[in-house]
């Protein structure tokens, strides 16, 4: 069997490799190249060097969007993970109907971002209507709207990952701790959390990158309004690319910077949390 896999490997991997090349690697390299060019469509690019990058950093909207994104990411990563962990703890207790609840909590994750954005826009505007306001009245409404939306969507997903982590903890460990007289807080901090560290790594990674890269929800919920004050990085890139004649290259440069930031954050976080993981 092993030998057969080796023998057939190139054939079996070929479709994936080709798809990966066509839909990821080639556009990625082209994208980096285009970030150094002035272009209208990908076919008529003209090399301009670092000009686009200078313009991108001189652009106030970009810096504002960066800060907004950072703030949003910090808040939503913390709230999503704490709430998801609490739900996971709750739903691993021997309660009736835990499976039903798990399914229900997971469901929002199956709905697309744009649809969720419009649904929540209606809900939030519906509520704010009584206070004679809309989500565009104040930037903080948009901010918290996005946080609520993101929590609603991601908690179920993260919860499932935490549940599987919690269920993998050997009952012997808990029992031993109980016999030794550890109270529930001690059991949580000294056994459960260290034991689910791999799940925490994954959940942090997913929430961090998803929040940072958020586009659909941002586009549908606030589209940056009021002004550009709730515009996140991805949306800013999109608007730069299409909003001004001749600024496609700057949009592309912003996208490359964006990629570098996301990659740096994700790798640092993986490195840090990996160290804390313990062997079973």
């Amino acid at each position, binding site marked *: *069997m092993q030998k*057969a896999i080796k023998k*057939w490997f190139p*054939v*079996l991997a*070929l*479709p994936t490799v*080709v*798809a990966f090349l066509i839909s990821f690697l080639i556009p990625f390299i082209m994208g980096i190249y285009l970030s150094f060019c*002035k272009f*209208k*469509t*990908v*076919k*008529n690019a003209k090399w301009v060097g670092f000009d686009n990058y200078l313009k991108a950093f001189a652009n106030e909207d970009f810096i504002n969007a960066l800060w907004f994104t950072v703030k949003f990411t910090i808040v939503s990563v913390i709230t999503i993970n704490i709430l998801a962990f609490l739900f996971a703890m709750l739903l691993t207790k021997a309660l009736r109907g835990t499976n039903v609840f798990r399914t229900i909590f997971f469901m929002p994750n199956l709905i697309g971002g744009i649809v969720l954005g419009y649904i929540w*826009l209606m809900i939030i*505007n519906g509520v704010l*209507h009584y206070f*004679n*306001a*809309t*989500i*565009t*009245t104040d930037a903080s409404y948009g901010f918290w709207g996005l946080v609520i939306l993101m929590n609603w969507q991601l908690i179920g997903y993260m919860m499932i990952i935490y549940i599987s982590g919690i269920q993998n903890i050997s009952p012997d460990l808990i029992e031993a701790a109980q016999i030794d007289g550890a109270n529930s807080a001690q059991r949580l901090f000294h056994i459960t959390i260290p034991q689910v560290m791999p799940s925490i790594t994954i959940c942090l990674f997913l929430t961090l990158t998803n929040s940072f890269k958020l586009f659909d929800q941002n586009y549908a919920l*606030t*589209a*940056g*309004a*009021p*002004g*550009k004050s709730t515009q996140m990085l991805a949306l800013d890139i999109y*608007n730069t690319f*299409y*909003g*001004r*004649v*001749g*600024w*496609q290259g700057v949009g592309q440069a912003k996208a490359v910077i964006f990629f570098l930031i996301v990659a740096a954050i994700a790798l640092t976080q993986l490195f840090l949390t990996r160290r804390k993981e313990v062997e079973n």
Partner: protein
Amino acid sequence: MKKSKKVLALTMAGCMMATAFAGCGGSGSSGSGSESGSSSKADTSGVKSIYFLNFKPEIADKYEAIAKQYKEETGIEVKVKTAASGEYEKTLTSEIAKSDPPTIFQINGPVGYQNWADYCADLKDTELYNLLSDKTLAVTKDEGVYGVPYAVEGYGIIYNDEIMQKYFKTDGAKVKSTDEIKSFDTLKLVVEDMTSKKDELGIEGVFGSTSLKTGDDWRWQTHLMNVPLYYEFNTGSESPITTCLNAKELEFKYADNYKNLFDLYTDNSCTDKKLLGSKTVDESMAEFATGKCAMIQNGNWAWSQVNGVDGNVVKEENIKFLPLYMGVEGEDKQGLCVGTENFFSINSHVDEATQQASIDFLEWLFTSDYGKKAVTTDLGFIAPFTSFGDDEKPADPLAKEVLSWMEKEGMESVVWTFAGIPSENWKNEFGASLLEYVQGQKDWSKVVDDAKASWKTEREATAE
């Protein structure tokens, strides 16, 4: 067991590859199909399909029907794709880079031409250009013709005459007929009086919602803005569009006039000011159609929208236009804002036979009996071509109104000067400013200053 697994793996791999190749094969053949007829200029026999990227979502299905008819008559398939509202430039940018790009696309005037100059074929020798009733309308550069206008449009304040007549019969009505409204002051008097009598008139407000949701604010940041731009730039001998296009800075001389009318809209609206940020154009058109308001700013294209709303109470004979009065001197001679943002261009990057086939389609649309009928009745265009006789004018009530305003003695139409606005970004920023102003977060003077500053940066940013 082992063997069956191997068989399974192989079959699956086979399936995957088959689908992958099927995908490649499909796109490959369509690519070669469009290139096959590149022999001589006029020979379009090899062309099987052309691709029209439509700008107007509200008439997308009408174009589908026309395409079907054209295929029946000539066998050439017209692929019609419609960009979502406000997304045309984005859609065109991505579509034109594909291997099967649009052969007919649309530019919005001189600014659009700057953007797409590489892709616009010269249309000087075409019948389409020769048929234009006013050749100065076309987008030209040096000797070449790169965009042919296909529809003249007009906008202003649309009103429901039924409600107006009801108002004129009330006690102490300020005027007795809409003909008497010839200036901002009269308009303001009437509107404010109507607001105080809104229960009697059965309306929730005089004006429909000033839709300021991002992406739905073009009626204010572009259309309403046109009037101050026109007065500011209609000074020299050149057309105001050219002057505006060359203006490095905006003085915004008529900012107070803009504010006059804008405030009148929001103060007498059927929606509270604070809630305007969530309103869309569709919603406000629906308010007008269902009789919740008496007036709304929009253009002749809006009739199909009003007519299509469930529970529309606006009768065809009652829908009329008023110009956008803002208190500028001599505005009693001001007509509607008339112009065009709709120019057909032919993609110069496709082979010549396909270009020719695309031109043939457009000529067919504006000269054949079926085509002309479709243009006037279904599409509702006021087509600026000599092939249309006097009896072939659009049937749509708002289009008729535009025509009658254009023909009114002594009235001067306001040229669509907004074609000279530096960039989409300027419009979006101005729209966002207006929203903040309405919500009470920005002073008017700041709105004006920001608009000027943004004009300068945008002009510089896009000048290269």
